[in-house]
């Protein structure tokens, strides 16, 4: 007996072709018991036969449908990605309440971020939350750290505000790690020596869990 999968593949051949060859083709498939490679060969044969027997317009429709499925299949092997973010407030510490020059904020933020996103700091988080388990043993520690660094984004979102975001394929871990990164950055601003502090950081909007993946969208 042919499997349902084989029957489905045979049904992809044109009706006229099946009328002539289906019985003997089915007999062959029962004897051969095709593997995945054989199944692909049957699918290829069905497409070739459809293209031989149908009109041009229908060919385009068929190729469109096949293209759609060809694109859909890999998308199910791509993991969902969630983004969790916090909004950080830049607070002036100047007695007069004068605004801190943007270049000073930028320079200071860069220094704190270099420490928060250092290999040591990110390596600690990777170990603590057991991040990227599928890459362990396949990639070096530095490569995994670089992968994590690429998933972190810090950018200004308004006057005296910045957003810190972490993207990961587990939404709860995305939230926990984004919280740790935000706390680390804020703590560094509080720990800075008086001479270096013209401003510090506070949390305006705490990290929220992402309910929907940002990637892939299906």
């Amino acid at each position: 007996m042919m499997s349902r999968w084989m029957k489905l593949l045979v049904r992809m051949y044109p009706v006229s072709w099946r009328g002539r060859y289906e019985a003997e083709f089915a007999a062959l498939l029962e004897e051969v018991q095709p593997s995945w490679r054989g199944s692909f060969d049957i699918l290829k044969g069905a497409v070739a036969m459809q293209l031989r027997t149908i009109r041009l317009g229908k060919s385009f429709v068929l190729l469109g449908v096949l293209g759609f499925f060809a694109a859909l299949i890999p998308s199910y092997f791509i993991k969902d990605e969630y983004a969790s973010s916090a909004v950080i407030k830049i607070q002036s510490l100047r007695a007069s309440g004068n605004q801190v020059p943007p270049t000073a904020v930028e320079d200071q933020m860069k220094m704190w971020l270099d420490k928060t996103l250092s290999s040591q700091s990110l390596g600690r988080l990777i170990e603590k939350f057991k991040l990227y388990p599928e890459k362990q043993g396949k990639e070096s520690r530095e490569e995994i750290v670089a992968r994590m660094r690429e998933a972190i984004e810090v950018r200004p979102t308004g006057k005296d505000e910045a957003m810190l975001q972490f993207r990961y394929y587990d939404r709860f871990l995305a939230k926990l790690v984004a919280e740790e990164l935000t706390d680390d950055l804020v703590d560094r601003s509080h720990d800075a020596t008086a001479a270096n502090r013209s401003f510090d950081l506070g949390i305006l909007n705490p990290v929220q869990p992402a309910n929907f993946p940002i990637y892939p969208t299906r």
Partner: protein
Amino acid sequence: MSDPTLLVLSSLANGDKHGYAMMEDIAEFSGVRLGPGTLYGAITRLEHQKWIRPVPSDDRRQPYRITAEGRAHLKELLKQLDQVVKAGQRRLKHA
């Protein structure tokens, strides 16, 4: 060497065969294992060109026979192939 037309006609040159027997025979004499879709694509084309024809059978498995036109076409294909083989060997010798 992996042209399904050449392989199927060569397989039928020494007697009638059904699909599975052709696949096994071709794998044995050429080392090429044709997939079911490729095999039946070739059978469809060859029958359409009247180079092979089905022979009556009580079995669900349908045997095929090479026709006179099929033999003539196979001879032509083999002649071309022979020319390529000889040219390649000559050039290797003089290289």
